[in-house]
């Protein structure tokens, strides 16, 4: 079977880094490019971090494109759990690899137009604020013809928010961009906190990954150890939710996830509820459902998948 053509739009970010490292060793995925955006860290850092992770994963063949330096309208906010650099306490050498000169938005438009032309639409994996995709959609709405699906991590439907009472970080960081994507005609698979809070990376898991991840064991272990929220009241145990990597797991093994279909609305007016994602579970609005919301995850099998994936770094590949 042909590998799935994807673009990963992200803001590394520790969980973004784990997602990238997982995707790098998946021959089922053809990663056309990595786009970066202002999010967990300012654009300069997320871009540098993406470059460093491609070097760590020995996938410098994948081009990296720097995207938007600020949300569409709101002032930038950054993540609170990613350390000073965005990659915890890990110390990576300054990357030798450079970002491409093309802007991420132009790369998205160009790839989607080509995909529409050849009738081989692309799957977009959005792991950060949705600024790049929203900007591309506003410049050239017809690129939807080149997009098979958006698989994104973000939002909180029945679950409470993680940055404010109501809102998940990626949605709060650029609610207008999220609104643009969610009100487009694109098919969307959403991995909200409802899903990601079912997959807690515990210290025991981290020890397990350190044992199997071969040449990336040490940096991976450091990244994962930094991710521990140490908040059993919220998460039921030590550890942190494996947000962004779930997007990659979903692409590789959708059977491990259960979804419910609903229209999703994003609040971008109320300061109190800014960035809240509201799912129309019971058809209270007139619009057709456009989002497959992941509400169930087979956590054990997902961890088994990640163990298997990341053990590939021990085999001298890729």
């Amino acid at each position, binding site marked *: 079977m042909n590998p799935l053509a994807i673009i990963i739009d992200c803001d590394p970010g520790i969980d973004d880094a784990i997602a990238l490292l997982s995707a790098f060793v998946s021959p089922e995925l053809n990663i056309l490019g990595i786009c970066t955006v202002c999010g967990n860290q300012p654009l300069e850092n997320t871009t540098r971090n993406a470059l460093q992770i491609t070097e760590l994963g020995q996938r410098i063949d994948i081009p990296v494109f720097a995207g*938007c*330096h*600020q*949300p*569409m*309208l709101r002032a930038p906010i950054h993540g609170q759990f990613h350390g000073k650099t965005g990659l915890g306490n890990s110390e990576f050498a300054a990357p030798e690899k450079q970002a491409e000169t093309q*802007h991420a*938005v*132009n790369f998205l*438009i160009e790839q989607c137009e080509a995909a529409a032309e050849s009738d081989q639409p692309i799957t977009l994996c959005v792991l950060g604020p949705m*600024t790049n995709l929203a*900007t591309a959609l*506003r*410049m*050239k*709405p017809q690129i939807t013809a080149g997009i098979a699906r958006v698989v994104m991590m973000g939002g909180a439907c029945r679950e409470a928010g993680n940055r404010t009472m109501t809102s998940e970080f990626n949605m709060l960081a650029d609610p*207008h961009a999220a*609104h*643009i994507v969610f009100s487009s005609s694109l098919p969307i698979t959403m991995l909200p906190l409802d899903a990601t809070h079912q997959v807690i990376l515990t210290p025991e898991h981290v020890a397990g990954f350190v044992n199997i991840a071969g040449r990336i064991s040490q940096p991976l272990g450091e990244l994962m150890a930094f991710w521990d929220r140490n908040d059993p009241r919220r998460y039921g145990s030590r550890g942190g939710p494996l947000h962004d990597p779930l997007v990659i797991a979903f692409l590789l093994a959708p059977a491990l996830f259960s979804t419910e279909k609903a229209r999703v609305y994003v609040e*971008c*007016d109320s300061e109190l509820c800014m960035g809240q994602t509201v799912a129309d579970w019971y058809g209270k609005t007139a619009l057709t459902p456009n989002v497959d919301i992941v509400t169930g995850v087979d956590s054990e099998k997902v961890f088994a998948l990640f163990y298997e994936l990341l053990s590939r770094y021990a085999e001298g590949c890729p």
Partner: protein
Amino acid sequence: MSKIRVIIDTDPGVDDAIALWLALASPELDVLGVTVVAGNVPLEATLKNACKIVALSGRTDVPVFAGAPGPLVREQVYGKYAHIGAFSHELVPDTASVPPQDEHAVDFLVRTLRQAALDSDPVTLCVIGPMTNIALALGMHPDVARGIRQIVSMSCAFTALGHRVPWAEFNVYADPHAAEKVFSSGVPLVIMPLDMTFQALIGSTDIEYLCQHGGEPGKAIAALLAAFDRTDIKRFGRDGGPVHDATTIAWLLQPALFSCVAATVGVEVSGKTAGYTYADFYRKLDTTPNATVIQSINESGFFSLLKQRISHYGTHEGIHTP
């Protein structure tokens, strides 16, 4: 004296057409490009109109770029004459072909303004439609704002009430989020609000003059103003209709025709009064003014300038590509 480098972002539109012909007949301005946005009519029509306007001026050296086909966040609204669509051949004849460039208007703005920032030679933006293209460009790279000398924007209603809806001027109403992005960008703003544009009404004598002396563009202006008459005696108390957008170009050419005040300008982006704009004329806010708000215009001086420049199209030499 070196020319003023300017990009005109527009949604033609009758008064946009007059603004473009005024700019293209003015040797003080180096028009680097015309970027087009949806607004008065859908993008397809504004683009077609922009190409025809530039073609009719004879300035086929000026590139035209298609931009955003709709606003950032709100649902699309068009101008009062949206049903007309593109100008008919009878109103604005098709002459030399000016096809739109392949490059997207936002990409042209980003490319030109980043280069301008690098060269420390910032460009003036004349923004006479909804501000969608400018907002998108500002979001792409921090150097875009640094490459803008000033944004001269026909937008807002302060002491005047709105025209498309009671609370808002059309260009802001059509994309209030884009206006918010532009107003908060830190770029120096010159705002030409309805308060001022309602003070300069073009009457039949001036229209007749333009028709007689202004060559093809002059005839087209007369035909457009006849087809889309903006006379509103009940509102303005006298004959004649405003030519809003053209005042931006006039300000670049002869700022002495205008009086102004510095003020903080802001916009309501959502709710029932989305697109409502305020100017803090009496310094009630603890903010540094972000805009120069134009308050009055010398009406006869403005129309003298317009007639003088548009007459260039009617002279034997016409307008030549520099």
